[in-house]
């Protein structure tokens, strides 16, 4: 009886895993399979949500389950605790909302070729992510991790006739397997240290610092590749941009968080983590945030912009985690509570507003058939509901009050300010606060650019002019997520209970000495200020209404400084909006420009084009892989084709191993 919550979660995960399967037995032109998949996803997610609620109210009912199985080394051990809970919320939420969204966005009747495949792997990936978060055995963790990675590949390559989607998915697959390779090493070292594959040990036995360093580096690179910390983010922009939008939503909102989950667990194992690791996390997080948003500001592709903004947000999350880790090393409980609290809250927040923005982007792409923001424009009038959602999402992701992003960033800021006042020799860490301020300012620049170029002004193309608000099945999930953003922003105290418990679970035995979030932050004031702000704006709106009833208002064209016929072609584009920022950051962004060459008395027609490609991918990874391929060419004689030869290799190696064993 005391494992009932765990069993409920396991059942809901199993149902989600097979949610796409019934669709395979229905015709390619039938919507029935899609309805079944959506219904199964909703029911199972509701069940999972109920189980999580039970866990919050009665933690004694969620004891771990361990079943022996025939796979060597491990056992089927799963459990749920408060850290797992925080990561399970987005998994269930976005899986259900995404499958509802898919009913309008990726109708089986419109996507005969790949709709069934998408739903099959949707369920499998969601279930695998839930298993990753619940696994308490290294082997089970790796199996779930690998299934998640492969299902993610098939989701990104949903449109397998599209070369860009194939390239993006290929990058993802390579990155995922490099990460998995590191994790194999990580779990083997971990099992070597602890003596078993059981996860997650609350405190590691003392080992040599070299062994600890190896463990930390393997774990950070392996999990960092999934989370997309700069410069390990190479798969992220291409993968997110070319997948269907609800897949981008779940990749960005949820899949990236499994990498964060790994980092949180890794840090949680160390009661006394080495100082260099905490500082590395803090610095890497800050650079990831700054460069991520810098790249975002230069993008023309709506979904690539959002993908780079995910890198930024992961950076913020990692900054909080780095702060908490340093707090643990230097014995500052306040840093731990504020850093980890902000980090975990940002995990939840980002899984609310980023899927909402990707779903909004999907609605735009669905309506206007282009992702190029410089071909859009004027959608605020033709897609008013999507526009409202986008404004809320953009304000939330910029961390503006009174929305949820503000609360999590506030916690991290407060932690960083603590380092300035009681950090002694570690006061320099507080420099991450101005870095976060810079990130906030650049996020405003990027998202105002997005809003302005896509929704404001006049349409720049016929496609944009013909746009319209999407199907209610696509709007509903966005309304729901927008509501969650407002609720957490106005009533952040709701989250503090779960966060406190997760922090106590993370710090382990020294939990009693810890302050709570409520003791460090006055949530009542935050709620009061959010209400005051909303009331002030509402009051202003009422006054304005009253006033406009009694006064004349006229309509006219935009004042364009005396020019008689302003047209959409004269509008400021998104690229020009952030050009000055991109120009200042040439040393990091390496933008490509095709400058017009003007000459002669009668200049011939010319054109200007600019883009911001991914510096790390184009100038680091791809050249490195090409030269690696050239080097490997020397070994190709061994790979001549006949299967018998390969079996011979296997046998030879086995014999060698036996000889040396």
């Amino acid at each position, binding site marked *: 009886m005391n494992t009932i919550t765990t069993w409920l979660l396991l059942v809901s995960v199993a149902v989600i895993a097979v949610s796409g399967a019934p669709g395979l037995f229905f015709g390619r032109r039938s919507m029935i399979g899609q309805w079944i998949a959506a219904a199964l996803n909703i029911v199972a997610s509701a069940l999972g949500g109920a189980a999580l609620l039970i866990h919050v109210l009665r933690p004694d009912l969620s004891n771990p389950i361990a079943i022996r199985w025939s796979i060597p080394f491990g056992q089927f051990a799963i459990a749920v605790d408060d850290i797992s809970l925080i990561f399970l919320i987005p998994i269930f939420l976005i899986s259900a909302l995404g499958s509802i969204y898919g009913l309008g966005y990726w109708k089986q009747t419109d996507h005969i070729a790949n709709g069934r495949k998408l739903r099959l792997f949707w369920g499998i990936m969601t279930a695998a992510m839930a298993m990753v978060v619940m696994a308490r055995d290294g082997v089970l963790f790796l199996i779930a991790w690998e299934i998640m990675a492969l299902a993610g590949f098939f989701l990104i390559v949903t449109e397998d006739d599209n070369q860009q989607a194939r390239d993006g998915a290929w990058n993802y697959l390579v990155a995922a397997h490099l990460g998995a390779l590191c994790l194999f090493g990580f779990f083997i070292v971990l099992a070597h240290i602890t003596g078993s594959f059981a996860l997650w040990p609350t405190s590691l036995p003392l080992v040599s610092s070299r062994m600890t360093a190896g463990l930390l580096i393997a774990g950070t690179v392996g999990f960092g590749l999934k989370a997309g910390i700069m410069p390990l983010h190479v798969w992220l922009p291409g993968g997110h941009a070319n997948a269907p939008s609800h897949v981008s939503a779940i990749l960005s909102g949820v899949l990236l968080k499994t990498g964060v989950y790994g980092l949180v667990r890794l840090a949680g194992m160390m009661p006394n983590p080495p100082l260099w690791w905490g500082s590395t996390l803090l610095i890497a997080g800050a650079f990831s945030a700054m460069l991520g948003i810098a790249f975002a500001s230069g993008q023309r592709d709506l979904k690539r912009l959002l993908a780079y903004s995910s890198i930024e947000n992961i950076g913020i999350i990692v900054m909080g985690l780095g702060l908490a880790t340093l707090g643990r090393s230097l014995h500052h409980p306040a840093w731990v509570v504020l850093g980890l609290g902000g980090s975990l809250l940002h995990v939840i927040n980002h899984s609310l507003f980023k899927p909402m923005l990707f779903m909004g982007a999907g609605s735009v792409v669905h309506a206007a058939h282009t992702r190029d923001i410089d071909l859009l424009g004027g959608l605020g009038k033709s897609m008013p509901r999507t526009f409202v959602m986008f404004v809320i999402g953009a304000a939330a992701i910029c961390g*503006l009050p009174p929305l949820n992003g503000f609360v999590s960033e506030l916690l991290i800021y407060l932690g960083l*300010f603590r380092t300035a006042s009681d950090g002694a020799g570690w006061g320099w860490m507080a420099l991450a606060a101005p870095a976060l301020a810079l990130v906030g300012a650049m996020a405003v*620049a990027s998202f105002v650019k997005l*809003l302005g*170029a896509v929704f404001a002004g006049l349409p720049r193309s016929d496609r944009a002019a013909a746009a319209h608000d999407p199907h209610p099945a696509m709007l509903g999930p966005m309304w729901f997520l927008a509501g969650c953003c407002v609720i957490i922003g106005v009533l952040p105290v709701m989250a503090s209970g779960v966060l406190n418990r997760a922090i106590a679970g993370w710090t382990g035995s020294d939990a009693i000495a810890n302050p709570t979030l409520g003791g460090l932050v006055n949530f009542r004031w*935050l709620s009061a200020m959010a209400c005051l702000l909303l009331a002030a704006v509402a009051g202003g709106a009422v006054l304005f209404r009253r006033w406009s009833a009694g006064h004349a*208002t006229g309509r006219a064209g935009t004042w364009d400084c005396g020019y008689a016929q302003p047209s959409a072609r004269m*509008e*400021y584009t998104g690229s020009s909006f952030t050009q000055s920022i991109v120009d200042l950051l040439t040393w990091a962004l390496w933008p490509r420009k095709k400058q017009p060459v003007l000459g002669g008395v009668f200049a011939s027609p010319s054109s200007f084009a600019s883009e911001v490609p991914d510096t790390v991918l184009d100038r680091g990874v791809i050249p490195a892989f090409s030269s690696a391929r050239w080097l490997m060419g020397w070994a190709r004689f061994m790979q001549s084709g006949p299967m018998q030869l390969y079996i011979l290799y296997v046998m030879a190696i086995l014999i060698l191993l036996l000889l040396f064993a």
Partner: protein
Amino acid sequence: MTILTILIHLLLLLSMPPLLLGVISKTKARFAGRTGQPVLQLYYDLARLLRKGMVFSTATTWVFRAGPLVTLASILIAGLLVPLGRFNSPIHFTGDLVLFAYLLGLARFFTTSAALDTGSSFEGMGAAREVMFACFSEPAIFLAFLVLARLSTAVTVSLSPMLLGPLTVPLGGLPIASLGLVSAGLFVVLLAENCRIPIDDPNTHLELTMIHEVMVLDHSGPLLGAILYGAAVKLFILSAVVLHIVLPFQTGWFVADWALFVFEMLGVAVAIGIVESVMARLQLRHVPTLLVAASLLCGFGFLLMLR
């Protein structure tokens, strides 16, 4: 006394800002040998705008109307967080300084979105400059806050104890070098955030070179009034912040301290007027250099505190 302080705070916050702009323009006029407009001109302008009708561009949506309202609301609420003179602000709690900075960010988000909503390329240019310059001034503000956090003995990270902190330290104990660097950096930020010379010229007549004024070209009537008033309040609260660092003195008498604050604010306005009179406007491409220098000044101030 607390209730009286709150009332005086509200009274000054709501009524004094337009006066500062009047003093600035009077100072400039005197420097140029003109009589200049009356000191209370902005009050008359606001009263006139409230009576007028409005014209909306056909390209605009609700964001265009919401822009000035949200901007004014968030700036006024930010004004409730800043302590004026030697007295605590009406609202102070842990973390209010982050709220302060992000309320200014919210104001910027909506001002620039409303500007882009018109689809005018000039307003787009102004908005692009506004968001870029904020990328320099926001870190500078936070670096200045860090210096104060390092200085203050209070554990709470809040504007009132931090900005009033230098008052409690005896003059000899103040880190003059740090506070001097931060004062200089923040003064540049004050000029940039309020679009004064040498960053922006509020009186220019060429749309191509404007920053703040060009973003509000299409607004008219009460909405324009809200924008002008909001800009004045922003100048007021940022000046109040800078004053705490530049002049950390108090007399100890209630009335004298408030009178001193009013005189200091007028002094800041005169100082801005003098800067505007003796300097030319920088070329736009040189503005980032100046703002980076301001951030670096605040950064050096912080590094000195780390010793």
